[in-house]
């Protein structure tokens, strides 16, 4: 048992925090409250520091650290509500490609991702509820060609991306494709998410792809997509963790300064107790998140899935409770856009509902649990 970071990991954490904090003051973030939530200068800075390639293999231009280390960067991005696409690019994009792409694809894309030269964005979500395996985007094969028909939803940064990594339902199972974002037949409808991020609905109208644009198909694809989804869930929890920690700490400091009735409002028991409940939430949530991140690298797919479900359920519950406690305990100040808390609260809601929410995942975990116990009976 060991809950400590390695020295290297601590270095990554400190470096990430330093760079992100420099670029994410309230003033700087305001520039991204409208329009694309992407700071290209910060992204380049992260690239220069090697952080975009933290967990990309050295042979493809990265630093070759593990997923756990990448999640430290993601957590810092949460802590700073930084306008950079770490999950959709580095986790669901680069890590997925690294694990499941062939060497040619990796060689052609990953070094440019690590150097910040090109942006790879994953588009997995569909209009219907979350799930690893796609159902509405259909891929039909004819000879050496594929034809794509259907939709993807809630894709951030799609307009800025050079490469899109997408999942689809093929005749014989799932499949994974990579295509340029200006592919013919691909249309993007822009929306704005609750956190103010532009998200796109992608519609594929008879999009023609070459066989070499297919990253993965056949029996292995479904398991791969489950694994990728788990990585995305674990990383989303890490981002939510950073967000919750800041909401909690900000609340503690604000209530320790703010006076009403001639005393610090923190000295009202109701205030202190509610903040303490949030602290307990964040501690529990931190541990299940760390476990999920560990499990996706070190445990069986089934155990990893359960760990990810548990962590994401906690993310939704803790995110909701900590956010509302923070808003409540701040009084009016919490919703004033000149004070930094509001972005965290909106991000907490957005992440709560991304890649599955607590209610649906609780049912899914129940199904998994039932299956496990039924199987145990048979064995």
């Amino acid at each position, binding site marked *: 048992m060991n809950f400590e970071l390695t020295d290297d990991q601590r270095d990554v954490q400190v470096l990430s925090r330093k760079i992100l904090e420099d670029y994410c003051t309230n003033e700087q973030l305001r520039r991204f409250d409208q329009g694309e939530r992407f700071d290209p200068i910060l992204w380049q800075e992260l690239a220069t520091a090697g952080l975009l390639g933290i967990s990309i293999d050295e042979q493809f231009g990265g630093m070759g650290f593990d997923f756990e280390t990448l999640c430290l960067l993601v957590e810092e991005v949460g802590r700073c509500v930084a306008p950079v696409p770490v999950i959709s690019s580095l986790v669901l994009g680069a890590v997925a490609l690294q694990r499941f792409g062939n060497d040619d694809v990796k060689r052609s894309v990953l070094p440019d991702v690590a150097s910040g030269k090109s942006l790879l964005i994953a588009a997995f979500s569909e209009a219907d509820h979350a799930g690893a395996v796609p159902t509405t985007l259909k891929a039909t094969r004819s000879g050496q060609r594929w034809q794509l028909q259907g939709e993807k939803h809630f894709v951030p940064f799609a307009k800025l991306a050079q490469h899109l990594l997408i999942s689809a339902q093929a005749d014989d199972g799932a499949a994974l494709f990579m295509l340029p974002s200006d592919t013919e037949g691909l249309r993007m409808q822009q929306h704005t*998410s*609750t956190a103010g991020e532009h998200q796109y609905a992608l519609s594929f109208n008879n999009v023609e792809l070459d066989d070499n644009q297919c990253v993965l198909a056949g029996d292995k694809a479904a398991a791969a997509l489950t694994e990728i989804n788990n990585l995305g869930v674990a990383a989303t929890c890490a981002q939510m963790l950073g967000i919750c920690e800041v909401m909690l700490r900000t609340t503690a400091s604000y209530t320790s300064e703010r006076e009403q009735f001639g005393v610090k409002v923190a000295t009202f028991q109701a205030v202190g107790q509610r903040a303490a409940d949030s602290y307990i939430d964040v501690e529990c949530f931190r541990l299940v998140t760390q476990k999920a991140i560990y499990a996706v690298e070190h445990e069986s797919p089934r155990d990893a899935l359960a760990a990810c479900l548990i962590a994401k359920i906690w993310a939704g519950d803790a995110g909701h409770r900590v956010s509302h406690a923070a808003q409540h305990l701040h009084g009016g100040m919490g*919703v*004033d*856009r000149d004070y930094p808390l509001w972005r965290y609260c909106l991000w907490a*809601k*957005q992440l709560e509902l*991304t890649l599955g929410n607590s209610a649906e995942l609780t*049912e899914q975990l129940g199904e998994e649990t039932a299956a496990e116990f039924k199987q145990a009976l048979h064995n």
Partner: protein
Amino acid sequence: MQIEFSAEQKALQQEIKRYLQQLFTPELTAELAAAGAEEGGGPEFRKALRQLGADGYISMSWPKELGGKEASAIDQYIFTEEIIRTGFPYPFLTTEACGPVMAEHASEEVRETVVKGILRGEVVVAIGYSEPGAGTDLAALTTRAEKEGDDWVINGQKIWTSLAEYSDYVWLAARTDPNAPKHKGITMFVVPTNAEGFSMSPIWTLGSVRTNATFYENIRLKDEWRVGEVNQGWKLITGQLNRERLSLVTHGQAEELYLRVARWAANTESANGKKIIDRGWVKYNLAKVRTGLEALKLVCWKQAWAMDKGTLQMADASVAKVYGTEFFLENYRMLMEIVGQASTLRRDEHTDALMGALEHRYRTGSILTFGGGTNEVQREIIAGAGLWMPRGRL
């Protein structure tokens, strides 16, 4: 017992529903759907409000001697609830709180201009209570009003003065005796927003709703614009807050979202060919929402009934306020879960109206737990007045 509306009340409800349907012209609907206009103030909003005035709805609950119909609390609740259901930004604080208080306590001049204007639906009043240093501890307010000859001169700053950007007046609490105990040196004034020395700057909130910091620099008011006795303002404020609390938690708006989400889930097929509503967890969420809503509805009904009978207990208003405001947050959450990630998209011409409504509601709902009398203090009131427990320290 009879835990439902009477035949007359049901008829009234239907009549109000029909009335509001025709009030909602396509132009009004379009105006309110535009970003930034949800809180009212546009020409169509003004037109509809004048219509409500002309048709006698604004004065519905006011005492007869003040020109009202003296409708029962239940009838008034029916109206409030139906109008909130439509999403019309009805200025409750103006019509239910400031208006009747002014009608009772203000000078002839204020009654002729402000009160009559409110009754005609031509006047909207913003509430100027909170200050940077006086939130929950409202009585700590420091905005000063000093007597100079027959006039008053007002200096100070208010914060969170909502609707000031289109209001005609601010209902202002100011300190007139800095030496008296804090509750005993406050007086109420009506400040025209076009008065010299009045200014404001916008505060944008998490919910995209605008509110304001308002500034009062040597504003000179005739004594006629004072309301109630000098240094007796606290009673006017607290009388008004009690009325405010009830209109905060009517169940209509929450129920409307529940009905729309349930209909949507029953109509929408997921990729596997089954309806969204067939999922176990969706049914569970709907049942939880329904369970919570039922209690909220009954709490509100009973309160309106008790108001009519004159038996409303002090703890009851606090029960409704705490339960209602905290239930709303859980309600939005559970409904958003059912709709899924689409519920996190902001309203635009390409998103479904239901999704946009949910997203907007959840984002503007969080302020109710501390606004209108914070829930901690409401809980203290419940423990004290409801259970006779010794009061904690304030």
